[in-house]
């Protein structure tokens, strides 16, 4: 902190500017209350040049955008009278003072007309100590309008804008298609996905109030004198500290959030959460707090016992389980026979000439198509799926979509141009259409064109797979943010793809009486390689999560307890399958027993992949702020759904979809 302040003091400071109460009489943006109190007005007299991360606070300086632009709030062209409207603003939270009275949340929900299940600002708490030496620290948190807004970068529809006015990160619900990716990447749970509306909305910094010189509603409503607001790095009157973190707050390095804290009162060495997230915070050597697993957390009442909980494997993200697996399998299933035939592998060249090549390609096409369909249906507003391509500059979701869609398109063309060479198609053509297609274009031409599309499909698939992996490398979701995602995704593309294509190829060749042994070996080797890659990733991941001091460790703890039996079954299947495949490759040859063996290995592979991917989604614990006992407590929300309490809208929990 000190060195940061010194670092700043060498910079130029805009001093001597006295901010007067803005003349806002007659503003059509916001009506200031009669006899409005000083606490409600912004009061930034001095403004620093740069924030502690070295970024300019004056956003006109930073961006070169013109001053005095209208924000067109509700299409109102009025330009606010706030003299600091081009400075980055942020919240200041005196954690020492918060009484957890919900006034900020209520003021926010009232102003923004949010229903009970949506809140742009939420108060949770951490607590520690032993009666009566007990302390609770309430934390009120909304959007921090970050320097590096990961929501903006992640959003595939480009619904987010970081404005040069106040540095506000605003989101347009009408652009959003409800994928919820911003809710994944935000470490503070700021964007709110409304499953009823099918879209996200979030804190708008009350820019209408800011324009007339008033602090946001939540700040003006604060009853504990805890919440404040102003130009970033300015410390309010009567406050001394401006820390970037307090216990329970995620690592500020992820996004450089525009919030500063005062928390001078010493807290107990260990602070616990009251919600069901099995995480607690322990004082570290430097006096900060580190995240550790709370093995006694609420939803793990039975301590370290292992359970199955197979029913809980299905979640809101189940469509994504299927999308990722099917897209990966599809890519592998297409790539194996195509590349093999292109490189002149005898049995695969033979297969390409069989009638079954096109059906296999169509199967791949259907798999990726179904996957994309599922992932679109997973959106809040599926009809807006095309908006997923808006933000290719920043969003991995967008690039993943582009890659996979391009793969699917190229594969489609590949199939189309492979048809004239297909004997079944030829016979259909000659019997039904009198050979019109074969006269139109020669099979030699179409094969070449099909090959071009095949070669185009492959890099698209690789780009798609890579960004599919990037989608999950989210700092706010430590359980995902590990290189095992890439070994798993590429590994599954190899193993599942090789299994599916191998099944078709070997069956086809066997039925035609052609030698399939090289195809069997290639498919087998690829299955083994894919499974090995996945397994290595998983071993490393398990170890990393076990040693971690972040929410990933808690996810792993749940993996080993709540889903313990399921997890160990999956691991056993993986290990056994590795041995089985290696054994088959080494000893089994290509006889009937080998074929049965490979079929078994493939089935085991499918089971372990589905279970593994479901675990991947269901286990992730984001770095969100601590919840309260009911509000923002995942355990209670689930309970309210299970028992039917959620059917009453005033409970603030969305019931299960029927």
């Amino acid at each position, binding site marked *: 902190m000190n060195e940061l302040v010194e670092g700043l003091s060498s910079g130029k400071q805009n001093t001597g500017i006295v901010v007067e109460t803005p003349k806002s009489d007659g503003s059509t943006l916001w009506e200031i209350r009669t006899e*409005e109190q000083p606490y*409600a007005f912004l009061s930034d007299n001095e403004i620093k040049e740069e924030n502690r991360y070295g970024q300019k606070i004056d*956003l006109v300086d930073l961006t070169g955008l013109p001053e005095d632009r209208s924000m067109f709030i509700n299409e109102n062209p009025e330009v606010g009278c706030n003299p600091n409207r081009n400075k980055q603003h942020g919240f200041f939270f005196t954690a020492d003072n918060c*009484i*957890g009275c919900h006034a900020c949340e209520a003021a926010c929900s009232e102003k923004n007309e949010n229903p009970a299940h949506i809140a742009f600002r939420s108060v949770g708490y951490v607590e520690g100590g032993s009666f009566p030496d007990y302390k609770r620290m309430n934390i009120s948190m909304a959007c921090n309008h970050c320097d590096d807004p990961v929501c903006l970068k992640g959003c595939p529809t*480009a619904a987010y804008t970081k404005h040069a006015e106040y540095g506000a990160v605003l989101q347009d619900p*009408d652009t959003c298609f409800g994928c919820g990716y911003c809710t994944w990447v935000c470490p503070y749970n700021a964007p709110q996905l409304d499953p009823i509306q099918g879209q996200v909305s979030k804190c708008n910094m009350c820019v209408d109030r800011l324009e007339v010189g008033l602090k946001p509603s939540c700040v003006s409503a604060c009853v504990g004198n805890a919440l404040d607001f102003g130009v970033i790095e300015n410390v309010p009157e009567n406050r001394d500290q401006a820390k970037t973190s307090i216990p329970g707050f995620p690592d500020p390095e992820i996004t450089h959030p525009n919030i500063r804290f005062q928390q001078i009162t010493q807290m107990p060495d260990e602070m616990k959460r009251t919600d069901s997230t099995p995480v607690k915070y322990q004082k570290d050597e430097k006096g900060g707090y580190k995240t550790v697993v709370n093995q006694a957390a*609420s939803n793990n009442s039975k301590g370290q016992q292992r359970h199955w909980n197979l029913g809980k494997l299905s979640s809101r993200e189940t469509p994504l389980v299927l999308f990722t697996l099917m897209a990966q399998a599809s890519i592998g299933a297409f790539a194996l026979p195509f590349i093999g035939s292109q490189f002149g592998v005898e049995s695969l060249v033979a297969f390409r000439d069989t009638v079954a090549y096109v059906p296999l390609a169509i199967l791949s096409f259907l798999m990726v198509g179904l996957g994309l369909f599922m992932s679109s249906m997973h959106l809040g507003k599926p009809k807006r799926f095309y908006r997923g391509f808006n933000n290719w500059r920043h969003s991995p979701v967008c690039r993943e979509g582009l890659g996979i869609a391009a793969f699917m398109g190229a594969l489609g063309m590949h199939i189309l141009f492979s048809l004239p060479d297909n004997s079944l198609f030829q016979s259909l053509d000659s019997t039904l259409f009198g050979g019109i297609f074969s006269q139109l274009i020669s099979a030699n031409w179409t094969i070449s064109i099909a090959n071009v599309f095949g070669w185009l499909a492959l890099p698209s698939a690789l780009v798609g797979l890579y960004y599919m992996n990037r989608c999950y490398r989210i700092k706010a979701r430590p359980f995902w943010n590990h290189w095992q995602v890439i070994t798993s995704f590429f590994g599954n593309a190899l193993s599942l793809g090789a299994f599916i294509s191998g099944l078709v190829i070997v069956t086809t060749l066997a039925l035609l009486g052609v030698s399939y042994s090289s195809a069997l070996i290639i498919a087998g080797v690829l299955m083994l390689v894919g499974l090995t890659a996945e397994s290595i990733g998983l071993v490393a991941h398990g170890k990393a999560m076990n040693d971690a001091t972040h929410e990933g460790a808690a996810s792993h703890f749940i993996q080993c307890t709540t889903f313990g039996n399921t997890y160990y079954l999956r691991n056993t299947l993986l290990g056994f399958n590795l041995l089985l495949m290696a054994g088959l490759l080494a000893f089994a040859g290509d006889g009937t027993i080998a074929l049965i063996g490979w079929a078994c290995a493939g089935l085991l592979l499918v089971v372990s992949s589905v279970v593994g991917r479901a675990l991947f989604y269901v286990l992730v614990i984001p770095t969100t702020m601590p919840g309260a*006992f009911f509000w923002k407590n995942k355990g209670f929300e689930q309970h309210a759904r299970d028992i039917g309490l959620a059917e*009453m809208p005033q409970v603030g929990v969305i019931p299960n979809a029927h």
Partner: protein
Amino acid sequence: MLFGRKNRKPIVIPKKEVVEWKYSTCNYCSTGCSIELGLNDQGKVVTSRGHAGADVNRGKLCIKGLLEHDLFDSAGRGSQPLMRDKAYESFEPASWDQALDRTAEKIKDIQEKYGRDAFAVVSTGQLMTEEFYTLGKLARGCIGSNNYDGNTTLCMASAVSGYKRSFGSDGPPGCYEDFEYTECFMAFGSNLPEQHPIIYWRLKEAREKRSFPMIVVDPRVTMLAQFADIHLPITPGTDCVLINSMLHVIFSEGLQDQSYIDAHTNGSKELIELVMSDTYDPKVAQHVCGIDEDRIRTVARIYARAGSAMSIWTMGINQSTHGSDGVANINNLNLVTGNIGKPGGTSLSITGQCNAMGTREWSSCSGLPGYRYLENEKDREYIADFWGIDPEFFPKKRGLAQTDIFPAIETGEIKGMWLIATNPMTSMADTARMRKIMEKLDFLVVQDCYEDVETNQFSHVYFPAAVWAEKEGCHTNTERRVNLTRTALQCYGDSKPDLWIFNQLSKRFDNGKVINFPESAEGAFEEMKKLSVGAGRTLDISGMSYDKIERAQGIQWPYTEADAKRDAQLSPEEKPKGASRLYTDGKFQTADGKANLISVDFINNNEQPCQDFPFWLNSGRVVEHFHTRTRTGKVGNCNKFSPTPYMEMNPDAAAELGVVHQQYVRLASRRGDAVVMVQLTHRVPRNMVFIPFHYHDCVNRLTLGLLDPYSRQPAFKQCSVRIEPVDQDEAAALNVQRRAF
């Protein structure tokens, strides 16, 4: 390119389109915050805001106030009168005339058959003062039952009783402004951040400007206790021991304000004799009250040595068998140290309901309007004359208190009852006993703005009442500030203002044709003004008017005609100002003008934790709910913060019993059982559990509610329970069933 986008995205923020702001006072707690309701061009309430110029809240509101305008059309509002012959039949809709006729006829039947007092009237602290005054006229002057009282017995009766015993008169002598002056602040059983957030904010503002010691006496580590300089985690029910022991230290170290004691008090000899006894020596007292002797001495010394010191208290004191005694004893502490009637030195009761003060002043529940007494012949004659009736119509002694009315139904002395804006099925101790009592009634009228109020299941007639700004009138807050609510919108459905209901019913009684019942609230207020004048009276509102109250955003009484004349010179920007404090001259409303020092000895008559029932059961409020949750339970953005009952329990005790966080347990007491969800926290000691009191069929299934001998207020906070395991699925089903509105 974080900032740049070629096509701007629209910024849409809900716009309220307010064309008119209507002035009102919050209808929840006694803080008395001013709220402006924003109406659109269709006259619909679309938003609200705290009044920034109001001295009480200065623009701030708590969660309940911020969302209060959501309740006008919330689920369960009563839209038409309902009637039935038997409580087990289903209701039939009725016209107002039918419902009022039936009610008047039944009241008369019962009174004829069993005597005038066999019909009881139980009101509330939630109506407008003018409505209380009118109800008093109706109950005392027309119906003539002496069994007429309010549910304020559950919240502030002890404060009233204690004030009367010490100062000869009710009325909190201090104000919020005292936080700005005090040099030592002590809170007894008062959790301001949760119960009175805006008063807490006023205190916090004072503490941000100037540091002064804050001492909090509370058996739980509330947020206020956590923020206190000194927290005294007292053994429940032993406040008198702590205060007596503090007095012991003060007298033995000569820290008392002897000149104040000599000039303005009686009874110091007896008090000294009592507190100097060995029982209250900190060495002995520490074992009873649970606060070590060093702490007792420290606290006594800083309190007595402070230039000015103030005490506040809420239900931690009032709701105990020593409630009235506790209040009197806090008054003792402040009288002995000369801390009454001076800036920063006061005994300030923080009341519960928005208009508990209004009912104390004007409802005639405990006597006659304007702090007059039935026991006083002159008062009887004066009021009878003013109303134009025979003074002999009045009883010569106050009848039963609210908490004695219900047992009188149990014993068959009372046969019929009218409940007005109160929900005893949730709020009274010992729900099982209450259910039996309610079943015994021959005739029950429930008047409430919600027809799903739990008590309505026993009624024969239901009157749908208007709520808050659907009608007009005043509230008095906890610092004696009279504040106004203007009519902002039409009544819901065919519901009617309580004033209208009282006026209509009065026409059906003989005296109702004699006594004048003004049609408007302002008309009733003008009558009250006339009644408030008199030599030596503190409760004088004669200088006030609706317009003046709105202009000042509330005026503290006394505010006389002379004050009004003085304020007539004010410029339009200046605001009329009433009296900040009472007893500034050291003159009290007793025969000799001196305050009484009341000797309070401690008798331990509470149900104590024992082998069978090893836990103290404590109860209290949460910030997002009000009372029996009839209103806040319907407002999603309030209710979601605690949609089902829960229990704070110490994790060490839980570990021993195998009780787990976020699971259900069954609690059993000597009265009954309740199912709650467990929240493990070190906020409570190992031998105590805490349950918010807002939920129907919950904490009051367990409570004993032993009555205070003076105030008849129940001791909700001291009884004992044991904890039993419960089938989680069955408990969950029960939880849902009991939460269904």
